[in-house]
């Protein structure tokens, strides 16, 4: 399979682009694999890639019930940052951010990672204190973080609402310049192509319908494309983790909710960074196509329907024009929802389970895209060694019994 390079681009251009090889194979499932990953989103594909790349395992399948990245990976608003509050989270998200910084080269696939900065706005005294606390915490973690005064925010992003009559005046903000956005589909496709090259079988339209055990050990899976035996199974199905846990006979501290987003008609370049406000509850960036990509909130009810309520979209539109009055005449092109796996402490679960040989990676909720490479990296290690990667250890399932939860409800979070 050919590498993507300027030479190859030229060569294929001369051939009218008719001779590019397939990006990944479409194999039929084999009867048995050493490791089976359930879920072909970014996290599952990254896990398979690092299993093959760093741990030398080549007998791997990724089973996806629909198409690659058709879950939350392809529905998210792609904000990448590492400025969480707790040290445990800092280690995990910063590991991921460092991987993002070299990811296009690593995968030989342009994931269009753009470090355009992520600006969190403070509107109240409480916001100021909380965001400054985050900035200080991040500095002690060795993570870049800056506090901007109101004037500095204005200089950095002048189209924000600084009118004297603003209902939610901007009193400052925290900025992580290394944060930014990436191309969501490219992340799934890039990991898929790189994993395929290392021999991983990527099997789409293959839904896992049951997990098979012998005693307390996993031995295989039933799927819509037949039975598959497996040495180990890693489950990375985001909003469907509760369904898979029920197949294995346990429950998780997670509920699945719709989370919505919307995009506007395309504009000339107007917003060069990512702006978030937890108080008015919206965040927005501008895609390379010119559309504003706008993140909304989650509904309070559980759902697997991949649609949310219109009231959430309406509230988001209110918030958007409060922050950016100049957007008030924009037309919106489309909105959608993904089913996000919200964990009680709003931190992920990367863990062994009560069933031997069965591992779960879930609970990323509204904010796991940014963690895609790091999550795959530590989960691959956890599966191979049958013990958590040191960075993943605080995110084990037993934290809910021990009480050592990692609460990340922080004000830096519209959560994404």
């Amino acid at each position: 399979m050919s590498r993507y390079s300027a030479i190859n681009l030229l060569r294929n251009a001369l051939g009218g682009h008719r001779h590019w090889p397939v990006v990944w194979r479409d194999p039929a499932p084999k009867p048995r694999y050493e490791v089976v990953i359930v879920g072909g989103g970014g996290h599952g594909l990254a896990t398979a890639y690092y299993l093959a790349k760093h741990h030398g395992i080549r007998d791997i399948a990724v089973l996806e019930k629909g198409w690659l990245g058709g879950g939350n990976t392809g529905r998210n608003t792609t904000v990448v940052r590492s400025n969480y509050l707790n040290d445990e989270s800092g280690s995990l998200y910063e590991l991921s951010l460092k991987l993002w910084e070299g990811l296009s080269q690593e995968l030989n696939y342009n994931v269009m990672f753009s470090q355009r900065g992520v600006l969190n706005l403070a509107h109240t005294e409480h916001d100021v204190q909380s965001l400054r606390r985050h900035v200080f915490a991040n500095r002690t973690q060795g993570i870049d973080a800056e506090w901007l005064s109101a004037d500095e925010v204005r200089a950095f992003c002048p189209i924000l609402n600084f009118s004297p009559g603003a209902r939610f005046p901007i009193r400052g903000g925290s900025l992580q310049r290394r944060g930014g956005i990436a191309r969501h589909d490219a992340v799934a496709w890039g990991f898929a192509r790189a994993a395929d090259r290392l021999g991983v079988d990527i099997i789409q339209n293959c839904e896992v319908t049951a997990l098979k055990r012998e005693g307390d050990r996993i031995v295989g899976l039933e799927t819509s494309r037949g039975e598959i035996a497996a040495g180990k199974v890693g489950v990375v199905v985001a909003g469907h983790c509760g369904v898979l846990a029920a197949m294995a006979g346990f429950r998780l501290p997670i509920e699945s909710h719709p989370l919505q987003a919307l995009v506007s008609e395309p504009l000339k370049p107007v917003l060069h960074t990512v702006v978030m406000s937890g108080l008015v509850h919206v965040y927005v960036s501008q895609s390379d196509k010119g559309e504003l990509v706008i993140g909304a909130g989650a509904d309070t009810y559980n759902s697997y329907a991949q649609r949310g309520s219109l009231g959430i979209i309406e509230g988001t539109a209110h918030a958007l024009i409060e922050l950016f009055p100049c957007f008030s005449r924009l037309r919106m092109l489309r909105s959608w929802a993904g089913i996000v796996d919200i964990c009680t402490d709003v931190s992920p679960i990367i863990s062994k389970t009560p069933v031997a040989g069965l591992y779960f990676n879930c609970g990323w909720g509204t904010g796991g895209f940014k963690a895609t490479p790091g999550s795959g990296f530590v989960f691959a290690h956890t599966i191979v060694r049958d013990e958590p990667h040191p960075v993943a250890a605080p995110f084990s399932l037993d934290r809910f019994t021990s009480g050592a939860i990692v609460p990340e409800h922080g004000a830096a979070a519209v959560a994404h």
Partner: protein
Amino acid sequence: MLLLHCPYCGPRWEQEFQCRGEAHIARPEPAAEASDATWAAYLYLRSNPKGLHYERWQHTHGCRRWFNVLRSTLTHEIVAIYRPGEPKPELKR
């Protein structure tokens, strides 16, 4: 948009309500004797089914009272609404 029949106020649009999570989760008794695992299950573990779900709702922007709903998480269809303390309606299959 859901239409919920508050047992106290009648039919109102969804925007007046908040869903408060799974219903019928009983606090372990006697509390002092419950194990860590029992507490973890009570506080954190949820059934999160794809299908019918017993859940609590509050009429936040109305009477502010709580009630129970049996609703499908797949179609959003509301199967039953009943007051706290009333017996759980049987699942129809």
